[in-house]
């Protein structure tokens, strides 16, 4: 399985990711912080991040959390985003500061 480096821009955390594990699940598995963890199912929106570099594959996200316009601007839910390259994200969800 190809390994990618995931970087959280807010706090400089780096961890290893792969295409079968969401960005959020990878962060949790390594005990890292920086992206707020909510429902892990694409429904609550607290793990919203901006993809600043790299490519991700997306599973379905609740439109109540990420609009089509936001998605076009690179805003995704980390629990629904699977890396296809090295990826850098910045947490922008409504709880991002609370979990820094």
């Amino acid at each position, binding site marked *: 399985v190809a390994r990618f480096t995931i970087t959280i821009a807010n706090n400089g955390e780096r961890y290893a990711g792969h295409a079968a594990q969401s960005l959020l699940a990878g962060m949790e598995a390594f005990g890292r912080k920086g992206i*707020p963890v909510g429902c892990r199912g694409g*429904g609550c929106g607290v793990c919203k991040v901006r993809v600043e570099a790299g490519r991700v594959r997306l599973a379905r*996200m*609740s439109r*109540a959390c990420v609009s089509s316009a936001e998605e076009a601007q690179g805003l995704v839910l980390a629990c629904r985003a699977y890396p296809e390259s090295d990826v850098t994200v910045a947490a922008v969800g409504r709880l991002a500061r609370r979990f820094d």
Partner: protein
Amino acid sequence: MALTGVLRPGHVQLRVLDLEAAVHHYTEVLGLWETGRDAQGRVYLKAWDEHDHHSVVLREAEEAGLDVLAWKIASADALDALAAQVLASGLVSDGGWREAGEDLATGKRFRFTVPTGHRMELFAEKEQVGNGMPLVNPEVRPSNLRGMSPSRFDHCLLYGDDLDGVVKLFTTVLGFSMAEQVVAGPERLLIGAFLTCSNKAHDVAFIRQPVKGKLHHVSFHLDSWGEVLKAADLITRHRVSHDIGPTRHGITRGETVYFFDPSGNRNEVFSGGYIAYPDRPTLTWTDDEIGRAIFYHDRKVEDRFMQVFT
């Protein structure tokens, strides 16, 4: 019959992002029984000890969350009377009747939007399909239980802005009483209301939050603390997204564990609590003791528990 108006929560319709993933979760992990699918593709489910056709309806949609919370009314006459009172109260919007049969196995429903933005329905008739056991000389449980196997859909906790309006509707029009409340600050602003239409500690609860129509959790009833601990084992066994617990609430005294369905709708299974007859005094919690009120063991508020909803 002492219960003459609203009998109980009848069913909850949830929006899910992936229908089959949701059906797997609610049947194989939670252990509800699928009882039907309609022309719109909605899936109908019930808990084992419920006799009515369904208590949970899943609808695939682009957003997660709550579509409708429906209440079963004791009789057709009581339904007509309550619907008229709800409409006359001035506390609801979009009130109107839905035809019998639009929901599988269900009679006519009166639908309206409450002051917190949630869609609610009242209905009196639903086909009874039984609990898998005879009505004469039954066993104590059916033989084909799987998953957590709650006996019933029990309640919802909902987030919304106009808490005062929704409490007025439920207490003065729908006949609920307040089992417990949470108040904040020197003005004792009401921020949480735990309401019962039966003698359970709660049949619905509302928390004041600056949002409309949001779902905090859908809850199902288990027999014992031991069953809650086994449910927690299943959460890991099935790699379900875990939220918090097993633990106990101060409010309602329930023994509980929280987790999320595959679309992020929070589920609870719980046991315990107490019997709340209508003459029982309302219990009040103040916000300076809120940690103990919510999680009696840890005695502190968890950000995810409070701030994550669909």
